[in-house]
Structure formats: C-alpha cells, structure tokens
C-alpha cells in the first residue's frame, strides 16, 4: 500500500464538482452531475460504467472537446497541478492540450486525418508545441513510432492511415499523444474497436510506456477485465455521477455499491463455472432530461429502500485512508445488513 499512499500525495489532476449539460430539441440533458476525482502521479484511474453514463463527457469536458453549444459546463473545476483548465479559450487550452495531457480515442480508424501521413500528423504536434523544424520533428516522429513498437517506423511514418491496421493506428495514436511527454494520458475506450488479441497488446504497451514515461493514465472503459488488468484505482460511474470509487481490489473484492455488484455479476469469467448464469441488470438507466431526485440506480436496485427514491446518498467513506467511498444509503450505520455487499464495519479482504 505504500506506493498507493505516495501516489495520493502528488495529485496531478483534480476534478471537483463537474457538471455538464447538453441542450437538445428534447430538453436539457444533465450528462454529468457533480463528479469529483483526482489522479496521482504515475497512477492509472479507470472510469467504468455503461454507455451514456457520462464517462466520455467527463474527460472530454476536461480537454475542452465537448461542442459548445449544445454542450455546457455549468459548474465545477478541473485543476492541472493546481490551475483550473475548464472553460478556457482555445488559445489557453492549447497550452496544455497535447502538451500536458494527451488523449487517445475509441476508434483509431477514424481518429487520424486520412489525407496526412502518420509521420506528419505526429510531427505537427511537435512543430506547434515544441517549435521544432520539420526535419527534427519528423525524425522525432519516427522515434516515437519506434517507441510504440511499430516495425519499420521510418517507412511507416511516410504512409497514410488507410495503409495501417486498426491496432497499428492505435499505436500511432499513442505515439502522437506522447509526442510532448504529457504527464497525463486520457484513453477513451482505447481498445473497444480492436479485436481481443490486439487489445491485450495495446494495453501492455500502455502500461509499459506509463512506467518509462512516468505518466498518469485515465482509462475510460466498460470492460471490467481491462480494469482489472490496468487500474490502480477505479471510479464507477452511473447516470452522470461517480457512485463508488476505490482501489482496484476494493472495487472488485469489497464492492460497496449495488451497481458495482450488478456490473460484476454481468461480467463473464473464465473460471469453470458453466452452471453459473450471468445476471444482467434489469431495466435501463434513468432519463437524464429529468434526473431523479434520489439515487439514479433506485429503479433497478435490488436493495432499494424508501429513502433512496427521494434523497441522494452522501459519499460514505469505507477505508482508513479514505480511498474507498460509496454513494449508497446502505453504507449508513443504521442501514440493514445486505448479503454480498461490502458495508462499513465488514472485515477487509486484504
């Protein structure tokens, strides 16, 4: 645990009370409703949750990538080494985008400009931010491609995205995002569009580069297997809020929110447990046009209580170093004991 404690001391990115809305023809969607988290130096924070829970919007807001309008950051702060980076004009934002924070996306096939060579797209970042000459930047681009293990990097740098495979493109995207040695890499579902063997390679590359480059990773995913492999800490998002956050072991072995339990039960495992059926979470997420007054998970929760419908739970802290919290009334000292769910006062697994 001592590594973890060190990680907390040096918070590179802190997000506080982030609220994001989208105005649509149907009304205002409250996509993100008061999200708080921080990322320490060198650590990997995974944000998990189902589609539409606001995980991508959260990180895109930090990067200033949500289209405004219709999007709008209505409240909150994101601090990069103490300086707020939310709602900055493009000129200010470009001092950290691609420099301090790099980002890679879900679909590498469409995330690179089809009419520019891979090398030019990488060296562009270097020329803009590091003011390198074209020759120097191109040489560095080749070195970066080499670093992400693209064979024949020099030849590849002169090629266009359509000449690359999906996995190679994601490597190129990673090379591009690393160009200016960022301290944070945001990976928005980086392996969702890739097939499983390539997924493993990309994840391995990411954790390796994380060590050599000494950077933090925010990993957005809905794949718990990816979380287990990569994350130091996990934030579970539901209906625009973080409902549970903790170290990866705490989330997997001491799940303290019914939604986290639900996600785990819906995850296939490779143990010889053929008799055990996967349990899907019944129902669908709440309508974020008019978010419920109480807990967003109320309608689907097997343990829902009367209180949950009308009043949102506070964040109950469950571990001594306050790394683990759950936003569920079942963590209240007077709440009934629930089977399977980790509750305050339960024996810690580790």
């Amino acid at each position, binding site marked *: 645990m001592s590594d973890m404690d060190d990680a907390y001391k040096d918070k590179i990115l802190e997000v506080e009370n982030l609220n994001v809305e989208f105005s649509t023809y149907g009304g205002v969607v409250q996509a993100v409703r008061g999200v708080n988290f921080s990322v320490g130096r060198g650590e990997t924070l995974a944000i998990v949750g189902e589609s539409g829970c606001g995980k991508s919007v959260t990180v895109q807001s930090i990067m200033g990538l949500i289209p405004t309008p219709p999007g709008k950051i209505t409240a909150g702060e994101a601090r990069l080494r103490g300086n707020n980076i939310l709602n900055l004009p493009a000129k200010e934002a470009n001092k950290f*985008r691609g420099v301090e924070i790099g980002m890679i996306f879900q679909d590498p096939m*469409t995330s690179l400009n089809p009419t520019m060579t891979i090398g030019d797209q990488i060296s562009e970042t270097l020329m803009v931010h590091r003011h390198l000459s074209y020759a120097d930047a191109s040489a560095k681009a080749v070195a970066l491609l080499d670093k992400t293990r693209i064979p024949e990097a020099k030849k590849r740098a002169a090629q266009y995205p359509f000449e690359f495979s999906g996995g190679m493109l994601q490597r190129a995207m990673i090379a591009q995002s690393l160009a200016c040695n960022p301290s944070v890499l945001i990976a928005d579902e980086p392996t969702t569009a890739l097939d499983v063997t390539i997924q493993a390679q990309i994840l391995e590359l990411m954790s390796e580069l994380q060590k050599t480059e000494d950077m933090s990773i925010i990993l957005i995913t809905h794949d718990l297997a990816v979380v287990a492999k990569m994350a130091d800490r996990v934030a579970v998002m539901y209906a625009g809020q973080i409902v549970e956050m903790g170290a990866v072991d705490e989330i997997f072995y001491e799940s303290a929110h019914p939604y986290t339990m639900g996600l785990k039960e819906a995850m296939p495992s490779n143990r010889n447990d053929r008799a055990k059926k996967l349990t899907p979470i019944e129902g669908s997420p709440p309508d974020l046009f008019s978010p419920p007054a109480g807990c967003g998970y109320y309608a689907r929760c097997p343990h829902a209580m009367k209180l949950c419908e009308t009043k949102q739970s506070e964040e109950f802290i469950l571990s001594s170093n306050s790394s683990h919290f759950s936003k569920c009334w079942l963590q209240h000292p007077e709440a009934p004991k629930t089977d399977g769910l980790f509750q305050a006062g339960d024996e810690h697994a580790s």
Partner: protein
Amino acid sequence: MLAYTLKRLLAGIVTVWFIATATFTAMHMVPGDPLMNDKAVSAEIRANLERKYGLDKSAPEQYVIFMKNMLSGDFGISFTQQNRQVNDIIRDHFPVSATLGIMAIFFATIGGVLWGALTALYRNRLPDIIIMFLVILGISVPSFVFAALGQLLLVNINSLFGASIIPVAGWGTFSHMLMPSMVLGLGTMALLTRLMRSSMLEIVNEDYIRTARAKGLSPSRIFFRHQLRNAILPVITVLGPQIAAITTGGFVVELVFAIPGLGRYFVQAVQQLDYTVIMGTTVFYGAFLVLMVILVDILYGFIDPRVRLS
C-alpha cells in the same frame, strides 16, 4: 501513378474516337447537306462541288477519309467560310473561349470554396442565410439573365464615372474579361458553395478533427490543414464535369458580350450543317473535356492519397 495516368489517357483516346464516330453518324443522319444553304446552283455545279468536297462518296468512305485526316491533325476546310481551315478557326477562337473558361472556373472555385467554408463557419446565422439565398438564385437564374444584368451594372458604373472604366462588351484587355467570366462562373460557384458547405459541416464532426483539437492545434491550423483539405475533395470531383459545362456552355455569354470565342462557330456550324466545322469543333471540345477530366482525376490523386495508390 504513371500507369494510372497512361491507362486514363488510353481510355480518353477511345472516348474521343467514340465522340467523333457518334458525331459523324448523327451529322449525316440530319436531312440536308452543307451545300443546301448556297444560292441555287445548277446540278452540274453542285455535282462539281460535291466532288470537290468528297460528298459524292458513300458515308463509310467519307468516314474513313475523315478519320485519316483527323489522325494527321487536319479537319479540312469550312464549307461556309471561304477557304478557311477548321484548324485556323480553332486556333483563332479557342484561346479566347479557353481564357474566358479558365477565368470563370477560377472565380467559381475560389468563390465556391470561400463562400462554402464561410457558410459552414456561420452555420444557421445571418451570413449563412444570406449567402445560401444568393446561392439558390445563382443556381436557378440562367446565365443570359446575369449577363444582361452584368452589362447593365457596367453601364451604370461607367456613366457614374462619365467614362468607360470597364468595357461593357468586346474582347481584348483584362478588363474585358472580368464581367463575362464572373457571369459564366456564377452557376458553378453557387453549386460549389453548396457542396463545400455540406462537406465542411460533415467534416467538423469527424473524429480526426476532435483528435486535432486534443493535440492542441489552433483553430486556424485545424481549419486549413485538417478541415479544408478533406472538405475540398467532393468539390474537386465535380470540377471536371463543371469545366466541361463552362467551356462548352459559354457561347450564350460569349454572344451577349460579343466575345469572339469558339462557342459561336460551334453553334453556327450545326445550324448550317457545316460538316467540317462541326466535326472539328466537336472532336476538339471532346478531346479537351476528356483531358480536363483526366487532369482533375490526377489532381484528386495528389490531394487524396487513397486514390493515388488504389
């Protein structure tokens, strides 16, 4: 790239041959012949003339002779203009039409890309609404209306200054070319504006634009380096046929502005069944257009690498 170009050129030659053959066939199916416009001549003179021009031979024979001459670059002598070589007509008048056409295409492309990009930037706001209204006008109003209006405008400008600042009609200097080429390019400009606008709006939402923003590039750099180049592809695609439309469709504008272009001969020759001029101008225009389309395809390859290699 070289093999691609050669392949396209070969296909182009076949196309030109086809144009020549089809025109020849159609021309001979039209009732009458080039000599019927002449003053009533005696049967004897007519027979002599027919012999002189080779009209007494059968159509297939004439076709073979025509093809042979065409391959050696000779289109023969005009029937209606005494002793004038078709080649001379083309040499004298095509440069005028080509200059006009190139300037019109220039105006249309610059304007179309510019206005299209502008409307996309100001989507659904006042500049967009105004420009898109003008675009509808540009597409639906025929060019002779704009030609007349353009002349009226020039007349008003000139009378305002009390001197002929910009000539209303005629040909010769650069100022002669301005108004006719703008009028000629207007329809194409309107079309390209619409195309460019929709293409730009589509590309704003592409993932690679988001990537460019995440890289921390300035909005102007994203606009010029990432958006424009990709948005311009559909515009270039239609440029080939548009060049065709402008260079052949220019004769109305040439007529209104009294420009000595090839268009007039092109139309007159059909009316007078001037066989040699019809064949000469049609084959020439056909070859020119085929060349333009090939050039555009090659240009396309330079901008979009995917075309270059496949």
